[in-house]
């Protein structure tokens, strides 16, 4: 069976004042039907640009090479018109900030109705009825009244529910969720995560979940991709990632998190900070912050290779399949 989404060697760069800045450098990933794949990393690692590349929502100064196949269909060569038929229909997206991603001048009902009318050709009346139904499914009380209201009249959690209702309107096969709960309080986040699980179970939707929160990853994802400075540094099944992280960066991330259930005297912080785009290290991009750094790390960037345990890791400690 063909994968739902297959990205091969995606490279996204932006032309800026005559120079080309590469944000995503050779990202490959596969999402199977019904699978939830998490992309984690800190600010600036390229996780959001990856999602926007899939949707082809980047500006005109963006240049993408490689391949993004959705159910076998190459997205990078589609015309804008063909892409519009896919967006919001077969692939939908939930953004981080529901306030800025909803139109403040349109009623909730109209916004949810738009993909329904556009992609499914429903009449105005039918779209409104379906919108009410969708709002009920995402647990919004007084759905009949809410369809006539504007985004500013709703709370953050409610707006995110509206976003989910809108994304699910055309029963997409693939849902891209970019930090869907980051702007929300933890009790509201818990509500939204439960809702996403329910929606996923009912529609058998594949999800690409982009987040910086490893707790959310552990709860939602089947497989995880860890990104650092525009590249994938580790890919693993979710339990493997938390039990046997391989890459020093993944280990560092896990160790630097304070825990709500265990006491630690001191956190193991990763020293330094993420390198800037125009001063990427020549070798491994994590080398300047890595505690296991060797001579070779400073000279050559390692490949993302399978390591023992079924995961993939980009690190000289594990090259050629054996542990050094």
């Amino acid at each position: 069976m063909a994968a739902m989404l297959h990205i091969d060697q995606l490279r996204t760069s932006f032309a800026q004042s005559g120079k080309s800045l590469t944000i995503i450098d050779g990202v490959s990933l596969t999402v199977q039907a019904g699978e939830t794949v998490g992309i984690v990393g800190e600010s600036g690692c390229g996780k959001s640009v990856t999602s926007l590349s899939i949707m082809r929502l980047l500006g005109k100064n963006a240049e993408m090479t490689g391949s993004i196949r959705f159910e076998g269909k190459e997205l990078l060569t589609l015309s804008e018109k063909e892409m519009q038929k896919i967006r919001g229909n077969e692939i939908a997206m939930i953004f981080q900030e529901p306030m800025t991603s909803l139109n403040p001048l349109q009623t909730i009902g109209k916004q949810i109705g738009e993909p329904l009318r556009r992609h499914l050709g429903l009449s105005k009346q039918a779209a409104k009825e379906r919108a009410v139904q969708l709002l009920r499914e995402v647990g919004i009380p007084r759905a009949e009244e809410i369809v006539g209201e504007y985004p500013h009249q709703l709370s953050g959690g409610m707006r995110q529910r509206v976003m989910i209702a809108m994304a699910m309107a055309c029963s997409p096969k693939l849902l891209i969720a970019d930090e869907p709960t980051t702007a929300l309080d933890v009790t509201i986040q818990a509500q939204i995560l439960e809702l996403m699980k329910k929606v996923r179970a009912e529609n058998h939707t594949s999800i690409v979940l982009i987040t910086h929160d490893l707790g959310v990853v552990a709860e939602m994802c089947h497989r995880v991709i860890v990104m650092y400075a525009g590249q994938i540094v580790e890919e693993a099944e979710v339990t493997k990632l938390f039990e046997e992280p391989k890459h020093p960066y993944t280990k560092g991330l896990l160790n630097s998190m304070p825990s709500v259930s265990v006491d630690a005297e001191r956190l193991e912080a990763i020293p330094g900070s993420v390198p800037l785009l125009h001063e990427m290290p020549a070798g491994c991009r994590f080398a300047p912050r890595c505690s296991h750094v060797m001579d070779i790390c400073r000279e050559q960037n390692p490949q993302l290779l399978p390591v023992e345990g079924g995961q993939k890791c980009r690190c000289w400690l594990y090259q050629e399949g054996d542990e050094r």
Partner: protein
Amino acid sequence: MTKPLLEIKSLTKHFVSKKGFFGQEKVVRAVDGVDLTIYPGETVSIVGESGCGKSTTGRCILRLIEPTAGEVFFEGRDICKLSPADLRGVRRDMQLVFQDPFASLNPRKTVGRILEDPLIVHGIGTAQERQKRVEEIIEIVGLSKQHLSRFPHEFSGGQRQRIGIARALILRPKLIVADEPVSALDVSIQAQILNLMQDLQKEFQLTYLFISHDLSVVRHISDRVAVMYLGRVVEVADKESLYRNPTHPYTQALLSAVPVPDPKRELQRIILEGDLPSPSNPPAGCTFHPRCRSCMDVCRSEIPLLRQKEEGHWVSCHLE
């Protein structure tokens, strides 16, 4: 028994907003009778969700916002009654670290100037002495002298937060109120800043009032924790006691909602229904009752008081 450094008694802040010209006055009860005591050398955290009044409480303590009612004793003196001149003296001993390291540093001043300003304001030392202190403090927070001539935009978020901490620290205060100091930072940087704050606490015998929405960070840094909901403290306890044995239904729901980075853990989550009620029209009785799963009749009419359940563990709930 040691004397408390800071004692807050029925601290209240009501914001009055008016809708339209003839509109009715609306009172937002941001902080509604908060009691809290902080002893020298400890870290007390206020934790709660957006709109619970935790930041307003922090600001009222420093009188950056004038409290509507209540008392704040700092080393036995009620700072709400101090004249502006006396207040300035006290503020040397209580400093604030802000959440957003991008917005809280003046972009037109060099880091050296930002750090020297508090010394100038309080008339401390000669120019040379001030320069020496600035150079000392920048190294204490893990940056170097070369950074002093640069401007805030040249630094990363973590470095800016170090500058914010240095600015608070340069007056050698006794109390630092840190309002979400690590919320804007990535986790690897957040760990650096938390470690720095712990090191500084040991070195300078600091007392922290730490305000945060992040229960994991709060568990890591605190000695005692106060949970706020809709302008009131619903539970205060030692960290161990609170996390092991959360007693207020809101604290229980809050703790159970935190996603744990362990995919094998069975979820036993209490999902709260609905949203936070508006603080301008809080529910009668216990403000948490419309969302509480153990709601009883008495909760709808009577406001529960903070009662001591165990030694040092206070809860405001009608449940026995």
